[in-house]
């Protein structure tokens, strides 16, 4: 819970990890390259006082995670979204045992999502059933650029992926978090393309598809698909920290998402341990669209409350104190929000200043 200026915000951090990237767990040079890439993201986008040492960054441990999220970070509930990365790390990147044990010890605070890889075929399907039982899965985190032997990527609309989504439906795993990466087969096309999300969202309307990084670096493709599919949601992992170094870009991202996707389908996350939630939440509550960027409406307190926690709480059936709840917006299920008044608003030159 975070409170400021008489307003209280219920916080759900919808994308956190407990990873181990220490040298002894690195399986190849790619394990080092991967965590170095994360560390550069961290150094590049964090305020000076929030930068961790490289050693701390390699592995944070459960104790520090609990402190960073729940003692210092205002978070009421967090959802583990582990990446496997078995080709890069001996024991995987996300630490299944440690994270799931933490979630088991603190069910009121933590939800453990697991992952699957459709290239594991029948064996993987059996494993998914076992994992669903063992962890009580409500969601999964899928990384389409995962390396797997000769293959370095898969698509959500591959036939085998459909078998897994059918199993998810049957097992009550309703929340599918999607993380796009640089490799996919074939390499002929754009690996960050989200067209496959469009296909699965249409074919599995009873599943929620949360596209992490709100499709970045393809915000435009994501927005266009998400506006047409009522079960596609925007995850703000990696987008959040732009609020510090690139506040105008962040404003445009939020402005575009609110316009195309709407306030009920955007989820906050710190992407811990890429960043810590405390400063992101404080900044976001203070955030406003710059005055000269009038093509976007100001962000309301109710919208901030939904993004910071209420939307993810609804998706994960997390109990929210009655006084902090808000009704859904009176918006169409699909199509851009406020589309009807675009012409009217844009006709006013001040509305488009600073675009």
């Amino acid at each position, binding site marked *: 819970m975070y409170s400021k200026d008489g307003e209280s915000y219920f916080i759900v951090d919808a994308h956190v990890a407990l990873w181990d990237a220490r040298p002894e767990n690195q399986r190849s040079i790619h394990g080092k390259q991967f965590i170095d890439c994360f560390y550069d993201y961290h150094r590049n986008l964090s305020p000076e006082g929030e930068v961790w040492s490289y050693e701390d960054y390699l592995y944070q441990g459960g104790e520090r995670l609990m402190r960073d999220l729940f003692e210092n970070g205002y978070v009421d509930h967090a959802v583990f979204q582990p990446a496997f990365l078995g080709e890069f790390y001996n024991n995987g990147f996300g630490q299944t045992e440690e994270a799931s044990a933490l979630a088991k010890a603190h069910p009121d605070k933590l939800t453990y999502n697991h992952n699957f890889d459709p290239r594991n075929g029948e064996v993987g399907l059996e494993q998914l059933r076992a994992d669903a039982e063992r962890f009580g899965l409500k969601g999964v985190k899928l990384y389409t650029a995962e390396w797997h032997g000769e293959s370095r990527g898969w698509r959500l609309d591959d036939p085998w992926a459909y078998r897994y989504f059918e199993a998810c439906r049957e097992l009550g795993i309703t929340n599918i978090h999607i993380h796009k990466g640089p490799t996919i087969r074939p*390499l002929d096309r754009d690996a960050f393309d989200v067209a496959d999300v469009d296909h699965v969202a249409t074919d599995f309307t009873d599943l929620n598809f949360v596209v992490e990084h709100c499709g970045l670096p393809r915000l435009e493709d994501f927005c266009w698909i998400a506006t047409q599919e009522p079960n596609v949601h925007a995850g703000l992992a990696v987008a959040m920290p732009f609020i510090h170094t690139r506040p105008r870009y962040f404003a*445009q991202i939020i402005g575009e998402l609110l316009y195309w996707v709407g306030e009920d389908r955007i989820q906050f996350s710190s992407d811990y341990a890429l960043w810590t939630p405390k400063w992101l939440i404080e900044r976001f509550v203070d955030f406003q669209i710059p005055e000269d960027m009038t093509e976007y409406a100001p962000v309301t307190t109710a919208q901030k409350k939904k993004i910071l926690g209420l939307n993810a709480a609804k998706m994960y059936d997390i109990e929210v104190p009655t006084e902090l709840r808000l009704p859904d917006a009176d918006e169409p299920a699909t199509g851009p929000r406020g589309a009807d008044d675009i012409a009217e608003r*844009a006709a006013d030159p001040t509305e488009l200043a600073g675009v």
Partner: protein
Amino acid sequence: MVLALRGTTADTATSATAYTAAHAALSTVFDPELDEPITDLGFVRSLAVDEARVTVHLRLPTSFCSPNFAYLMASDAKDALTALPWTEHVVVQLDDHHDSDLINAGLAADAGYRGTFRHEAEQDLDELRETFRRKAHTAAMERCLTALLRAQPDRQVDRLGEVTLGDLPDDERTAALRRRRAALGLPDVRTAVVLVSHDGTTYAAADVPLALRRARSTRVSIDGNAHFCRGLLRTRYPGSEQDQTERPEGAEPADAVLRPPTAPTAPTFIPLTQLKEHLS
């Protein structure tokens, strides 16, 4: 960027010209995703000219930048240098990337895209290039039309579909749009409609506002990516800001802070006075 130039003293002037020509050739190589020359982005780590031998090292913002884009830029760089009449041996190497070994071996053997990526490649990267040529056009179009809206407050958004190239001011923004149109094969005449899809289709008045909004999301995305990638390169390779030119579109105060006040913008052509310091 590390500059290196070798040759006999008598050849100095010729060598400097050769170096300049090699750099100019590299400046024709674009990052298709960010729609900018690799020389402006700081992706050229070093360029060495030793008579007919040219060696280039490229660097990218992360080890995990998309391998298909990485390959495109590296192979385009090799092609551009090989096309110079005086080059006989061109070596292009991509540094510090997860696919460096694969891509560098492919480049050295002139294996082509399919030969380099084997089972991961189906046909070619033409569709990928086309996708980003279209996005670059969309963003350039949006910049022009939004500028027009600001300059002409009485203009109705839903009548933007009537604007032609002749209505645009003769400035760099319009020139950039015309270059992107040419890349798509769109007409370059004063009467040509500005707001069009990649194949030249115009929009009905009722669809114009939404078309502009879509174009805006593309422009926001490209500008945002361009600055994030530049910033990551500076974080990964301290000093690389010396090799980056300013990108005014989408720039924020932090970009000025990150750039040392004394740093010159990277020249498109290396001044000869500067080159002489590197002559041996």
